[in-house]
């Protein structure tokens, strides 16, 4: 069944159309240039992504440490001030400093997203490994479970879980983790199945290696890079998901802002003309997501060029 793919790996070789207008767009030399599958993430993308991510992470880590402005203090006299020397990014509807609040929100969002990505990956690796190791009926049931989970609207399930445990950070992590393990499980399972048929594994079995030895020296190590890449690929999606839950009002309490909480504030603020309350949190969220996705895409292409299509963590 064809899945929606995000890569352009299917770009065909050779001229696509004999239409004259196309030929004009095709550089004759160097001949291979436009025929090579154009990657989602080239080298320049990676450099920019890393730079953006480092800046953002430093901002989130450092700013709350070196500030004497309490972001929770309400200052009703200085509400909705545009960016100025005193408040670098302006103030919100309750007069709280947006520069500090953004840094804290970013911290919360990144931490929760990282936890959620790790949880999803751990669940996925365990499930995928069990499916591949046991095989047979268990494998079938697990793969059906993967299909079923994929077919369900994730955000809706997240809303249900997060609303039942209102304001609990771990509920957000669990709700993301429980819905995003499927792709990892699928990749891990197929990786183990394919490594198991390779010659070096056959040789080690023939030379008397026990089952435990085969698994610990050949099969499980093969999964590790996949798992690490999966964490990075899941990360932007987790940031996205967490901010969506907070935005809908079932996330963290307003005193511990995440980027979603700030954007929820922005919803009423932009109607009052407070564009900075939308632009800065939204910009941070977008920049972070795109930067991590850029790095993740490059990692994936580098680690498994043939799997570029399969390994897409979507949905």
């Amino acid at each position: 069944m064809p899945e929606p793919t995000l890569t352009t790996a299917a770009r065909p070789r050779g001229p696509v159309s004999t239409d004259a207008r196309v030929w004009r767009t095709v550089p004759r030399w160097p001949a291979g240039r436009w025929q090579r599958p154009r990657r989602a993430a080239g080298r320049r993308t990676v450099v920019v992504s890393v730079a953006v991510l480092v800046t953002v992470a430093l901002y989130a880590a450092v700013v709350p440490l070196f500030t004497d402005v309490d972001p929770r203090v309400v200052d009703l006299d200085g509400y909705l001030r545009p960016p100025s020397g005193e408040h670098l990014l302006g103030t919100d509807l309750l007069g709280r400093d947006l520069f500090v609040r953004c840094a804290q929100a970013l911290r919360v969002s990144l931490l929760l997203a990282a936890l959620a990505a790790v949880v999803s990956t751990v669940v996925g690796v365990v499930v995928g490994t069990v499916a591949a190791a046991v095989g047979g009926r268990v494998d079938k049931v697990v793969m059906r479970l993967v299909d079923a989970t994929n077919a369900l609207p994730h955000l809706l399930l997240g809303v249900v879980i997060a609303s039942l445990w209102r304001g609990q950070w771990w509920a957000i992590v669990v709700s993301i983790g429980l819905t995003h393990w499927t792709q990892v499980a699928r990749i891990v399972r197929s990786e183990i199945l394919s490594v198991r048929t390779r010659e070096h594994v056959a040789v080690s079995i023939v030379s008397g290696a026990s089952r435990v030895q085969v698994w610990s020296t050949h099969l499980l190590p093969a999964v590790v890079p996949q798992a690490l890449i999966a964490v990075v690929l899941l990360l932007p999606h987790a940031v996205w998901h967490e901010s969506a839950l907070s935005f809908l009002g079932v996330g963290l309490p307003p005193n511990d802002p995440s980027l979603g909480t700030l954007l929820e504030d922005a919803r009423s603020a932009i109607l009052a003309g407070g564009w900075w309350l939308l632009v800065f949190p939204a910009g941070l969220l977008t920049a972070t997501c795109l930067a991590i996705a850029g790095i993740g895409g490059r990692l994936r292409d580098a680690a498994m060029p043939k799997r570029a299509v399969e390994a897409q963590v979507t949905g």
Partner: protein
Amino acid sequence: MTVTTEAPAPTHHRWRAAGRLVRTRLLIALPVTAAVSMATFWLASISPFNPLVAYLGTRYERTSVAERDALAGELGLNDSWIAIWGRWARDVVLHWDWGQSRSLARPVSEVLADRLPYTLMLAGTGLVLAVVLSLVLGVRAARYPGGPTDRIATGLGYALQGIPPFVVALVVIGVFALGLGMPVGGASDGGADPTWGSIARHIVLPASVLALSQLPWLLLNVRSSVLAALTEDHVTAARGRGLKDRTVVWRHALPGALLPFVTVIGARLPELVTGALLVETVFSWPGLASATVEAAVSGDFPLLAAVTVLTCLAVLIGSMLADALYLFVDPRVDDA
């Protein structure tokens, strides 16, 4: 799925194959839906969520402990979660009784009937818009790879994947509502009863944002499958016969290239729900998705459970229909 190169099977075979597919998929969809509803009830039973507080609302503080116990016994809240689920499922299946929505103070079934048309309207318009846009842009991008349309379309596609729809929605509100004075909230102005005209004006922005949130996947899919189709033998043959470029693309390459598109749309349905949840909330669209969010925020469990279960069922059936449709549009596929 087997792809054969022989003569296409007669139509009644396709109907039979589609029937088989529907049967097997329903055999999966119904248990999955039941499992989702059970999981929802189980989670509610182990969570700190207190149904009595939701039932009594502000009166909860004023009722004594004995009264609370009595009421809980009367409502059957002391039973195990599976018993509560059993009663709920029986009421739903036999009487179409989804319980009482606390936050809206109406039966859930009424809320569903009221709000569903709005969600269908929004999701339908958004999906049609996304499909049309992705077809126009995707085909053009594939015809002139590396050209300006291609670069803009793929760039847009990759960028939109990383931007959450509610951010797009907020930006759209900032630009079009504040700058151009387009309506942003609800389906009518100032609490008036919605008319077709007011709905048409109010649906523009939410439907566009919903379309944008689905665009990247559809667009990139169209682009890559049309690119692949343009290299196929029968397309080269059509060119060799001297047909016009337009005819070659639209009549020879496109039909084959777009077959998988049907299933892609089916597979995107869960994401359409996600988009609807966010877009309806931002634009206060009076649909089911915004009701879900309100239900979640105000602890309205009956409504939340109903919407969750129905949405899961709708998504599973939708993707089943998409796959069944595939049997009819692609004559090469004889089973699925």
